[in-house]
């Protein structure tokens, strides 16, 4: 055996060993205990189209986060000005980047300006002007600050969604940002996608608002209620009939307490009615506020509002100190559990909406795996038989190269932690056909050389050498498009590109080096008069 041959054979054997090493966790259902430690443990990842699951792309309405911040500033200014005895007519957010204050006189405006400068240095103060005897003053959030807020809101949304999914319990979820304001969530093997989507997509802004008892809610319309009130709806579901009744309710626009003051939320079961409810605990600020508000409003109703719909509006019977409260409503145990999750995980800084939802059931995934394997087997069989008939023994050598190609490919997919999708399987099947192509080119060239009267060994040498450039060229062009597919494709298509490009690169090795080893080995040992090709 020549020196070059030993080296090449060992290379093939090492790759073969490595491939099987990485494939063992996928092929063997339970690994023996001694396998743990340094040996690879990961199976080939299956894409969602094969194992079933949900792929979501969500868009964060980042502008809403900016507006939310401005709303908070407006509310806070109301409180601060009142605390300093500065009288104002009106403070509110205007448009998408301004807060407008309407004050009674110039002196107050000057004081207010001082206060704002101290409290909100990042806000730009626009020049004041007179407007029908009032002083009109505007603050603008600069584009840079607003952009910062938008970016942060996506980050926060990502964290919140991650928290919710962790608490919901999904194995190996993928949650990541894509582009400027998109969040991609992958939930493999999820059983109840609808429930998960509702849980993830909910803004979950919890607010406690006082009910305005002076207005008759039944006849109120959004136009007739005072400016600082709003009309909300409480939905009640009859547990026996399932019928939904909507009860209108007029509440104060300003929230007394919000959900970000919570420390915990747990599902409890009411022992009296056997109804689930959610027990919530406030932090010290929340507890103090709750104590103050309940003390000042005994006898009034306190609406518990989640995402602008009223859960319940119980009457405040007495002052509540201690920082605990409960949210009851007509919900099922599952709904109560989900509510407690979103309250614990916190609210989203801005609403998100789902712009892409791909859900594959587990049965279809299984079906796809079976059919993909079937197509692969038939493909291998057809190609193997054809090559053996057409090129005889040499055809078997090409088949050996093809099988090596597939084993190496599977091994590298496992080693790289790549994801196998159904189009990925299709790429492997396609590769079965493509991988023998290089050998076809070589064999045809060898046949030509033999016709010119060369000896088998010289013919093989010339065939491999002369076909080399052609094979390189054809591989590079396929690789160009595969690389582009990898760059642009998502999900299943990316899986296709990964399998295809890896397979093509490996094919260069198996068809040029591995198959030649077989020829060289036989030609060096056995004196061959006529090549079986």
């Amino acid at each position: 055996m020549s020196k070059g041959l030993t080296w090449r054979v060992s290379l093939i054997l090492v790759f073969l060993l490595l491939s099987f090493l990485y494939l063992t966790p996928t092929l063997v259902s339970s690994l023996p205990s001694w396998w743990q430690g340094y040996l690879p443990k990961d199976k080939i990842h299956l894409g969602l189209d094969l194992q079933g699951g949900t792929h979501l792309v969500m868009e964060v309405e980042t502008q809403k986060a900016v507006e939310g911040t401005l709303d908070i500033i407006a509310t806070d200014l109301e409180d601060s000005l009142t605390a300093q005895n500065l009288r104002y007519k009106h403070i509110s957010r205007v448009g998408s980047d301004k807060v407008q204050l309407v004050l009674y006189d110039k002196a107050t405006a000057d004081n207010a300006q001082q206060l704002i400068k101290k409290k909100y240095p990042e806000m730009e103060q626009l020049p004041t002007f007179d407007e029908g005897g009032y002083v009109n003053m505007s603050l603008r959030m600069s584009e840079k600050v607003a952009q910062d807020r938008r970016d942060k809101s996506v980050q926060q949304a990502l964290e919140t969604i991650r928290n919710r999914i962790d608490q919901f319990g999904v194995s190996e979820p993928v949650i990541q940002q894509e582009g400027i304001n998109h969040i991609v969530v992958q939930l493999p093997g999820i059983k109840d996608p609808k429930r998960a989507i509702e849980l993830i997509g909910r803004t979950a802004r919890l607010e406690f608002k006082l009910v305005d008892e002076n207005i008759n809610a039944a006849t109120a319309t959004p136009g007739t209620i005072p400016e600082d009130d709003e009309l909300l709806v409480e939905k009640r579901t009859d547990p026996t009939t399932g019928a939904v009744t909507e009860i209108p309710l007029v509440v104060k626009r300003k929230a007394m307490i919000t959900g970000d003051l919570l420390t915990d939320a747990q599902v409890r079961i009411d022992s009296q009615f056997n109804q689930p409810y959610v027990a919530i605990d406030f932090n010290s600020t929340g507890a103090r506020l709750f104590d103050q508000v309940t003390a000042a409003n005994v006898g009034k109703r306190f609406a518990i509002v989640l995402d602008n719909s009223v859960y319940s509006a119980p009457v405040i019977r007495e002052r509540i100190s201690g920082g605990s409260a409960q949210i009851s409503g007509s919900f099922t145990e599952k709904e109560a559990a989900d509510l407690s999750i979103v309250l614990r995980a916190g609210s989203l800084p801005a609403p998100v909406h789902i712009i892409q939802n791909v859900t594959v059931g587990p049965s279809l995934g299984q079906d796809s795996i079976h059919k993909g394997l079937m197509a692969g087997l038939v493909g291998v069989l057809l190609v193997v038989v054809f090559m053996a008939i057409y090129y005889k023994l040499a055809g078997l050598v090409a088949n050996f190269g093809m099988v090596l190609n597939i084993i190496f490919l599977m091994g590298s997919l496992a080693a790289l932690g790549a994801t196998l999708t159904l189009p990925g399987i299709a790429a492997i099947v396609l590769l079965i056909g493509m991988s023998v192509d290089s050998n076809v080119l070589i064999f045809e060239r060898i046949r030509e050389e033999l016709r010119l009267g060369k000896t088998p060994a010289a013919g093989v040498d010339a065939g491999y050498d002369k076909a080399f450039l052609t094979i390189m060229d054809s591989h590079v062009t396929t690789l160009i498009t595969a690389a582009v597919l990898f760059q642009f494709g998502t999900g299943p298509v990316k899986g296709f590109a990964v399998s295809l490009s890896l397979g093509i690169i490996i094919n260069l090795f198996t068809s040029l080096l591995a198959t030649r080893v077989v020829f060289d080995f036989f030609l060096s040992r056995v004196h061959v008069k006529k090549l079986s090709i």
Partner: protein
Amino acid sequence: MELIGKTKIDFMGMKKISFVISGIIAIVGLIGVVQIGRGAANMGIDFSGGTSVQLKFSQPVSITQARAALAKHNLSEANLQEITDGNKLLIKIGKTTLATGKAADTIVDVFTKEMPGNKFEVESSTEIGPSIGDKLRKDTLVAVAISLLGIIIYIAWRFDFKFGIGATLATLHDVLAMFAVFLLLNKEVNLLFITAVLTIAGYSLTDTVVVFDRIRENLHKNLKESMQTVFNRSINEVLSRTIITSLTTFLASMSLFLFGGEVIHDFAFALVVGVLVGTYSSIFVASPIVALWEERAVNAAQVKP
């Protein structure tokens, strides 16, 4: 064994016929591309936005029955498709008045209500908002353009400019032919189809490169013979390998088409079409274009002095 022995087919002489055939294919393909641009083609929801739901029923469902059930709930614009094995039904709705996230639920509700005796399972559901579709369309155009550009640059570098143009036109021809077949059969143009198109764009070059390599080799060896003869001889010399390499890939894509299941059925079909057209074009499109060009260059050089 040899399928094709020594041949002496006058491929160059057939260029009049083959150019007419390819011209027609290219025009139909271009119409297909224009239709896609206008949104008039049968676009997959990944490009157009919309909802598709695949249901697997326990008992057979007729399309008329399903359509009637959907029409009752103002979903008459739904596109229904029966999948033969296993009582499966694929329901597609384009952009609707229903918000993203609602259409799939509505469809499921309709069948639960209207066919209470026939239990079903949601095998897959896909909802895609219009903004995603727009972005994907743009990305796809860029991807196709970059692929073609990459191929031109590589071939032009490896061979010369004329071969580069010939190879690119042949590739473009294959791409247009796939669009033409899908347009004529009214098959859905979706992301997987584009994947198949790009794969074939890369793969069909294999045959072209094989032929070009031989032409170049023979051109260097022999300066006396006419272009026509050198090109013809080169194609004939490599004819058997051109056909065998395509045949093995054809066998593989055919087994995908027949056994790969409904999800990749159209994808595999596109591959089968692409492999066939790719072989044809490397013989009948790429080489004649280069031959014509080279001949003209030679004639011009002879006239000049």
